[in-house]
């Protein structure tokens, strides 16, 4: 029988017998999800520390002996690389994708559990290679997270010896890991939905993760190819990207390569990557808003279509990262237009979130606070994106702190707020315990106000012309003393926010052991993951029988019903139960 995953038995499941089989070499999507998430968060903490060190240097130059220019550039590079790829991509797709897809579509596991397990271990290998680059002679690469040639592999750039090779190898390994995971997510959604779960009955979270996985599968090959070609340039002396040039007074052996070619390949991956991170966050926030406002998501079909359209359009905007690279101005015109067009489906989503909140029965629980916080930061970051999408505005702002403020708002803070909201939202299901509400609220408010204190002033610094990636500003006439003061303030805010994350970690760990037992469905949500027979869900998720889905995911506050939600697997009152269907 071809449809093993749909068959109502447990036979195809891999049943571990030992502790190691259950929690280390596990093929259970829930355990893999937690492995992915903890690894991503752990390496994210490293990136957080690096950002703290950068902020210290920016606020108090000439104070810290251990931060030399080389170190600063290494911090910049590894911070960006970890946050974008090893934290956000891995956490949203490897973590939430793994946990939510099978539970939300009513499957027992991913369709290829072994490949899924392999995906995590290969990802861990990529992380280990990356972290190991701190311990090689010369340290990690300091070329900026975009790794632009020719400077990336030339003498003088920190980590040009071994650091860059390890970076490229680590990225290539990551792409392999992601491809294995992504194939699983896409195939599982297409293949293993339970009876009655039509495409348009899937929760927005699954839609976001699904489309983001497809995008990742198509975009990451560009990074893979770029990494291999760059590694060949560095190790074997080919000239894919390296032009003829003189370095440190010596002629290099390179000839005729095109640095722009690398930029095209990198951003063909790099821009979809923004949406690979954003779309799962969009999907998750849609569910958080609907559940905690006790209202169906406004314009569900429009929300799904917008996700698909954004996913498609995002492959046609990459060169808006390259306005200052000297490419043909007509390209700039084309990419500015496509960039502004992609704002339309994005704006539709924002309006629909706001309209979902409108006259909703809003419960300001912590996940909802984070979801609303996301709406603020995302609108802010999105609007500054409209500025930067226009060539004539982008050119003067491109190398300033304005860009830092913009992309941290839109793809740093916004997805992180959603991730926090999502962790608080699903924690009771994942662990079976409830977190401490007071500490969680404190964590939200410090984080939310703190990120504004950090990133809003950066826009002003950028308009003043404060350049990004600089180790120290030195004596610069056009930068007023107030900018230095702002830098100090930003650093204090950044360190406060970083320290406030201890509240989160304390809360998560303490509640794991001491939290009150959670209700199986504490938020009164309709989606399938809250209807499992066990909390936390057992291996195989659904006990002896798979759930049958009778309705869409957003039946909240339906008039004439006793409760304000109807689970997706609750049969309609008028219809006969599934057994009597054939009559």
């Amino acid at each position, binding site marked *: 029988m071809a449809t093993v995953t749909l068959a109502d038995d447990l036979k195809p499941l891999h049943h571990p017998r030992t502790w190691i089989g259950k929690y280390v070499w596990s093929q259970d999507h829930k355990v893999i999800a937690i492995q992915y998430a903890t690894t991503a968060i752990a390496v994210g903490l490293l990136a957080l520390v690096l950002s703290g060190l950068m902020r210290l240097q920016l606020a108090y130059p000439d104070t810290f002996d251990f931060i030399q220019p080389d170190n600063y550039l290494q911090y910049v590079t590894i911070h960006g690389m970890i946050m974008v790829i090893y934290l956000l991509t891995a956490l949203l797709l490897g973590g939430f994708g793994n946990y939510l897809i099978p539970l939300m579509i009513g499957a027992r596991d991913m369709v290829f559990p072994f490949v899924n397990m392999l995906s995590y271990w290969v990802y861990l290998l990529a992380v280990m290679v990356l972290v190991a680059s701190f311990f090689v002679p010369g340290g990690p690469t300091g070329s900026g997270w975009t790794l632009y040639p020719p400077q990336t592999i030339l003498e003088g750039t920190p980590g040009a010896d071994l650091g860059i090779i390890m970076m490229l190898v680590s990225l290539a390994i990551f792409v392999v890991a992601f491809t294995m995971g992504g194939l699983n997510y896409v195939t599982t959604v297409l293949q293993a939905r339970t009876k*009655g779960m039509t495409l348009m009955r899937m929760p927005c979270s699954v839609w976001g993760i699904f489309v983001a996985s497809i995008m990742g*599968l198509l975009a990451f090959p560009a990074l893979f190819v770029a990494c291999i070609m760059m590694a060949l340039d560095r190790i074997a002396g080919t000239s894919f990207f390296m032009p003829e040039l003189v370095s440190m007074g010596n002629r290099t052996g390179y000839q005729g390569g*095109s640095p722009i070619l690398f930029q095209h*390949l990198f951003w063909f991956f790099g821009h979809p990557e923004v949406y690979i991170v954003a779309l799962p966050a969009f999907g998750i926030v849609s569910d958080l808003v609907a559940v905690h406002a006790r209202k169906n998501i406004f314009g569900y079909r429009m929300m799904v279509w917008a996700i698909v359209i954004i996913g498609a359009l995002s492959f046609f905007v990459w060169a808006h990262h390259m306005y200052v690279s000297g490419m043909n101005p007509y390209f700039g015109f084309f990419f500015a237009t496509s960039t502004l067009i992609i704002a339309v489906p994005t704006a539709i989503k924002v309006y629909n979130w706001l309209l979902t909140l409108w006259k909703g029965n809003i419960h300001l629980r912590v996940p909802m606070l984070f979801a609303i916080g996301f709406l603020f930061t995302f609108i802010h970051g999105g609007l500054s994106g409209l500025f930067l999408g226009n060539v004539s505005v982008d050119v003067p702002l491109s190398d300033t702190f304005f860009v830092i403020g913009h992309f941290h708002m839109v793809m740093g803070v916004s997805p992180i707020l959603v991730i926090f909201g999502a962790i608080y939202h699903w924690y009771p299901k994942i662990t079976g315990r409830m977190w401490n509400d007071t500490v969680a609220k404190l964590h939200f408010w410090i984080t939310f106000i703190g990120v504004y204190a950090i990133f809003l002033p950066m826009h002003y610094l950028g308009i003043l012309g404060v350049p990004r990636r600089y180790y120290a500003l030195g004596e610069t006439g056009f930068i007023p003393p107030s900018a230095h003061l702002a830098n100090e303030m930003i650093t204090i805010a950044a360190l406060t926010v970083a320290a406030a994350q201890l509240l989160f970690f304390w809360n998560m760990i303490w509640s794991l052991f001491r939290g009150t037992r959670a209700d199986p469905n504490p938020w009164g949500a309709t989606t399938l993951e809250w209807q499992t027979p066990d909390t936390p869900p057992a291996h195989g998720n659904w006990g002896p029988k798979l759930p049958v889905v009778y309705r869409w995911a957003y039946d909240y506050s339906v008039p004439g019903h006793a409760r304000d939600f109807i689970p997706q697997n609750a049969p309609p009152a008028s219809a006969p139960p599934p057994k009597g269907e054939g009559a």
Partner: protein
Amino acid sequence: MSLFSRLGEKSWETPGVPAEDPASYRPEAARVGLIVYFLVATFLFLLVTSAYFMRMGVEAGHGSHGSTGDWHPMPEPPLIWINTAVLMMASLAWEAARAMGRRGMAAPMRTAFLSAGLFGLLFLAGQLLLWRDYAAAGYFLAANPANSFFYLLTALHGLHIAGGLFFWLRALLRPRGAPLPVELCAAYWHFLLLVWLAMLALLVST
């Protein structure tokens, strides 16, 4: 039901179990996974191809770095055509295995299955020989961008062939009585043949 009508479903208006059982129209998971992987690999080779053309464009003086004229196409020795023929034989053998599998002819199918993999191995050996011949004639990896792309493309394609051989070997070593995954293997090898023909056309025409 077409994809568009499925995406147009007003799911809030239609509670109840849909008449269609998903099991009735869904192909097996491995097949769907393979099709998705075809997409990934297609993108991979398309991207290298576009990089190939852009790098050539630099030579022609269209790039922003002036003309360096460093693109010297490689010759096409007879071996490259022999290897192509071998890969076609592999595809034919897979097709034969598939056809016999459908008719339930177990013994000839096994022969075809075995020979298909052997042709694959032969192709890989031929490609390595091709590399050695080129290197012996002075066409090194770093000597010229045309060479670099040639080695890159053949290596990426060869890795995919090696992956196919891994699954072939795994199928050979399968436990007794388990069916041979002929259909999927055949599809994969046909896909790799198509990729190779496209890459060959690229290498020969430029």
